[in-house]
């Protein structure tokens, strides 16, 4: 029990000593809401891997931007990631190289090239940062995320709001193209346009979540809440709402635990998401709802 009260003390101390922790928590919640909103559609459209692939692209893009010496590398990372999101979606639709292979190619390729670029840059003294520390924090989330600057936090929140508003206004269209693209097309809803918008929204989410959970763990934020909600709930609307609530809860809890026990925020949050999934899975089985 002593270690628990020590952890609580640490939590309170951290919030008092670093006002930026509050920003970090708020940004984390926005990220949780965004990623879980789109997660339902991504999982149902069998697009889960696009999110995963994009996060690797974002890693490559970020190292590229860092080496080039951009002070604020978010914009260039965002631009490149959106470009590849659109590209991946296009190849998924009509291509000689099948969708999954294309995603694997681009994602592994950018992971490798990203690491290579930053290594070469270190050797040539172009890049003078802490190599292994920076790579690790880009992949698994930055330990310094709790020191997020105010302007970075505002950028994240603005981008999140764009995603949330876009989702609300396009909700009915997203439902239609997720459930049945052919029917939507046949009755005059251009599914490709909305797929394109979806790809852009996914890219935005990936980029803003990268510093928080790290590029390897982003897809967990996207797919776990959706899969958990789908175990229990039976309508698209209730699945979406519940996955947002669950994701917000898991992120907040994971974030607080990570401060209490000085663990990395990203992987702690994902661990909480995994536990939540297990609970939902059991509830789903007991209720006999999901066959």
């Amino acid at each position: 029990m002593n270690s628990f009260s020590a952890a609580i003390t640490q939590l309170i101390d951290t919030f008092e000593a670093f006002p930026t922790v509050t920003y970090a928590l708020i940004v984390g919640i926005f990220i949780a809401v965004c990623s879980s909103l789109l997660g339902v559609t991504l999982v149902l459209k069998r697009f889960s891997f696009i999110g995963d692939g994009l996060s690797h692209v974002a890693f490559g893009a970020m190292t590229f931007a860092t080496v080039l010496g951009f002070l604020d590398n978010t914009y260039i990372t965002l631009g490149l990631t959106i470009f590849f999101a659109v590209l991946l979606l296009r190849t998924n639709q009509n291509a000689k190289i099948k969708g999954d292979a294309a995603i694997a190619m681009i994602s592994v390729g950018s992971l490798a090239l990203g690491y290579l670029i930053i290594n070469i840059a270190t050797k040539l003294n172009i890049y003078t940062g802490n190599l292994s520390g920076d790579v690790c924090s880009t992949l698994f989330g930055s330990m310094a995320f709790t020191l997020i600057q105010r302007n970075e936090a505002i950028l994240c929140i603005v981008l999140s709001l764009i995603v949330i508003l876009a989702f609300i206004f396009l909700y009915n269209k997203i439902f239609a193209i997720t459930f049945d693209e052919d029917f939507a097309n046949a009755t005059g809803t251009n599914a490709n346009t909305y797929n394109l918008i979806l790809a852009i929204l996914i890219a935005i989410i990936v980029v803003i979540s990268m510093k928080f959970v790290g590029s390897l763990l982003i897809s967990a934020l996207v797919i776990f809440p959706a899969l958990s909600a789908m175990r229990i709930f039976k309508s698209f609307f209730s699945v979406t709402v519940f996955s947002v609530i669950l994701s917000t809860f898991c992120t907040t809890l994971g974030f607080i635990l990570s401060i209490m026990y000085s663990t990395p925020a990203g992987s702690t949050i994902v661990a909480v998401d995994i536990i939540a999934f297990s609970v939902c899975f059991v509830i789903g089985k007991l209720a006999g709802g999901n066959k």
Partner: protein
Amino acid sequence: MHQIECNNLVLGYDGKPILSGLSFFVDKGNYLCIVGENGSGKSTLMKTILGLKSPLSGEIKFGDGLKVKQIGYLPQQTEIQKDFPASVYEIVLSGCLSKCGLNPFYTAKHKELANKHINELGLDNLKKRCYRELSGGQQQRVLLARALCATEEIILLDEPVAGLDPKVTSQMYNLIDKINKSKHTTVIMISHDIGVAIKYATHILHIGKQSFFGTKEEYLNSDLLNKFDFKGGEISE
């Protein structure tokens, strides 16, 4: 002016024709059955009418107040739909999407329309149920209600009874027939079953090496029917 008129259509993939010289028309209230062997291009033809694919050559004209992208469509089930968490009501309502235009949300009028079709197809007690938990026949009725929400002018059905048992199959055919007669909705249906085509359709389009288009009576008198493996095909009620 016919509702849909196709002249000299050539259909195919990647520039290779699989079906050529196809001409036919449908008028308001007709019941057209498209029959033919597997791989003869029935589904391709349907996707072309819907504007999801473009023909290699030839033309499709829409008339009688019908516009492209104003066609109710009952597609074959996709893999994605088998475990899709959505309620019956949500799916039927999504048929109204094209009526929303720039408005991002459904209005009371759309909801009323969805409820009307749910009621007409006997889905009232399933309204809140999850689509993936329904039987095959119930799922098809949900998709039919959705198609009717999009339009009552014309519906295209792609093998609507695939995978259904005989009893549900005949119920489904009766339902489609009822919609055709009571609402004067034009029906274009792909079917494997010549017997059904002869029982319900007013017109028949037989596609394959030798294509045929005409009324049911003309089809019965043609020699094409005898070449087809036809086994009586009356459907028990």
